[in-house]
């Protein structure tokens, strides 16, 4: 009955009720959308960390300058195969090392061609990167030793060169005009944090790359070394060991900058996660302000409503309503208003999270807990901001209320 009366009172002023709840609607929608987007981003970062390989360290040629930019790209690489091999031999905190050399090259199969990154990699590449085969097999030490012209394609390259019905395994494609036999296709790995497609690669044995494709000028130089630490706890030790070893090998004097860069990708991912968390909390704070403003709006409208309906309150009291009946009536009205706003806001929030996913391509993850919490909180806003007007109504004197004009 109280609920029915409250809903009727709200329906009587549809526009006013609608505008009043708008603050709550926006607040709740913002909270839910923000949490969904934030969670989606975290989830994506988490997946990227996993896709990079666990406990992975990247060693790149070139120093990190104070501005954070690295020099050395495209220049003569300062890292060599021997560096990588020594890291594998001497660093106790490291249990896997792989390296590669790459170049952008045209891949051609029959009529089709596709520009991709051709990477000459050492045989351990798959284990270190934690990558696996979708089809066929990876090349081994024998292919490395004899510089065989075999290639393993990333998913993107395979899809671009081969039609849906065609089997890439056994086909011969040309990389930089050199014929290669496809012996395997990699499992899809997705994008890196900076949006690079990891599946847009053609892997070939390192020796093949040096001798037959990428040219022999910089024999022994590598573009990047990957090393895996034995455990997450040993990552920083591994990083130190690599740095010490390479400084020594490259004869860098104390006080001089490194001519290479070691990066812990997990740490980078975590940093970006922290950034997104900070962003989410900031936006949540803004959303909470919207909820607060919405609450004040509800309080304001209820105060107006109490004044407008003073006579009605008087009549209700005259026929036997106690203070608490009146209190409850207005409180229920406040809660109905804010809950309505909360539910609308939840729908809007979920909707806009979906829309953001669809339009911007950001991953979003709607959290049932956040939806429930936001709706519950909106009800609490109703109780909190509805209480004062409701108590004001309940404490009216019946005769004064009846005489009110």
């Amino acid at each position, binding site marked *: *009955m109280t609920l029915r009366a409250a809903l009727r009172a709200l329906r009587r002023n549809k526009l006013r009720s609608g505008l009043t709840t708008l603050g709550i609607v926006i607040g709740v929608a913002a909270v839910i959308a923000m949490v969904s987007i934030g969670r989606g981003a975290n989830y994506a970062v988490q997946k990227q960390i996993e896709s990079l390989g666990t406990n992975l360290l990247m060693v790149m040629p070139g120093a990190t300058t104070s501005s954070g930019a690295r020099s050395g790209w495209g220049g003569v690489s300062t890292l060599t195969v021997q560096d990588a091999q020594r890291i594998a031999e001497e660093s106790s905190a490291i249990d896997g090392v792989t390296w590669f050399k790459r170049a952008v090259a045209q891949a051609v199969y029959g009529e089709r061609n596709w520009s991709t990154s051709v990477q000459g990699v050492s045989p351990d590449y798959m284990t270190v990167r934690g990558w696996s085969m979708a089809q066929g097999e990876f090349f081994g030490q024998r292919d490395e030793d004899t510089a065989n012209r075999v290639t393993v394609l990333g998913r993107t390259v395979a899809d671009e060169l081969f039609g849906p019905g065609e089997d890439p395994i056994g086909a011969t494609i040309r990389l930089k005009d050199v014929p290669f036999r496809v012996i395997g296709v990699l499992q899809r790995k997705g994008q890196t944090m900076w949006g690079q497609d990891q599946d847009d690669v053609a892997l070939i044995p390192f020796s093949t790359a040096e001798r037959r494709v990428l040219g022999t000028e910089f024999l022994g130089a590598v573009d990047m070394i990957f090393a895996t630490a034995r455990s997450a706890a040993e990552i920083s030790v591994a990083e130190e060991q690599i740095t010490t070893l390479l400084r020594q090998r490259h004869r860098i004097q104390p006080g001089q900058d490194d001519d290479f860069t070691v990066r812990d990708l997990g740490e980078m991912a975590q940093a970006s996660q922290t950034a997104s968390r900070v962003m989410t909390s900031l936006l949540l704070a803004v959303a909470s302000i919207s909820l607060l403003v919405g609450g004040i709006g509800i309080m304001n409208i209820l105060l107006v409503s109490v004044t407008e309906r003073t006579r009605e309150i008087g*009549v*209700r*009291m005259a026929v*036997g309503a106690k*203070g608490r009946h009146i209190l409850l009536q207005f409180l229920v009205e406040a809660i109905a208003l804010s809950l309505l706003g909360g539910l609308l806001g939840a729908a809007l929030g979920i909707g806009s999270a979906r829309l953001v996913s669809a339009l911007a391509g950001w991953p979003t993850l709607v959290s049932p807990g956040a939806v429930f919490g936001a709706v519950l909180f909106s009800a609490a806003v109703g109780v909190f901001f509805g209480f004062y007007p409701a108590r004001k109504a309940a404490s009216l004197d*019946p005769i004064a209320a009846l005489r009110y004009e």
Partner: protein
Amino acid sequence: MAALIEVRDLWKVYEQGDLRVEALRGVTLEIEAGESVAVMGASGSGKSTFMNVLGCLDRPTSGSFRLGGREIANASADERAELRCREIGFVFQSFNLIPRTSALENVELPLVYAGVAAAEQATRANEALRAVGLAGREQHLPNQLSGGQQQRVAIARALVNQPRLILADEPTGNLDTRSSMEILEIFQRLQRESGLTLIVVTHEPDIAAHFARVITFRDGEVISDTRQTPRVAVAGVRA
């Protein structure tokens, strides 16, 4: 046995700054259960003030007011609400129905506050509307009813909790003669059938003639209290 209403030296004083209005100045009287009383007097003589105290809507400044032997001059707000709910039905000059709310729901209101079960509310409210000749108008809104019909809804609302006492402050003040007669007829029938105690404020001697006792106020005091044989109201009730 004590009278239903016992009022002793009842005062009501309004003070607004330097202005002091003595609306009731030591009213003393008794009204037995089942009586029908007309309250008369000039405008501003304190009739409404007196009725509001009897109706537990207002508190007297001083004096004693016993209802059914129980002192309630200083009852708490909740106790007075309880009395308004169960013991007293109040009818106003301006009807005071809740706007945009059906006749039926208006009549159900006291039952809601008395905590009567929802199913019983409708049954009893329908019964009360039938008793005032408004069967078939249950779903009408107040603004879809004539003044006389609105006042009958208000009477049904006053009756629905089966109170011992009905108070009406100029119930026919806004109505034409014909509607006034209908209201009087209903009051007389109720009183005859259920032994209600009825106190009605009126300015018109023609109306007062329908009550067995007439109390007259002047300047906050009772100046006369007479008994008579009430005239019987006749008006074919239009539904």
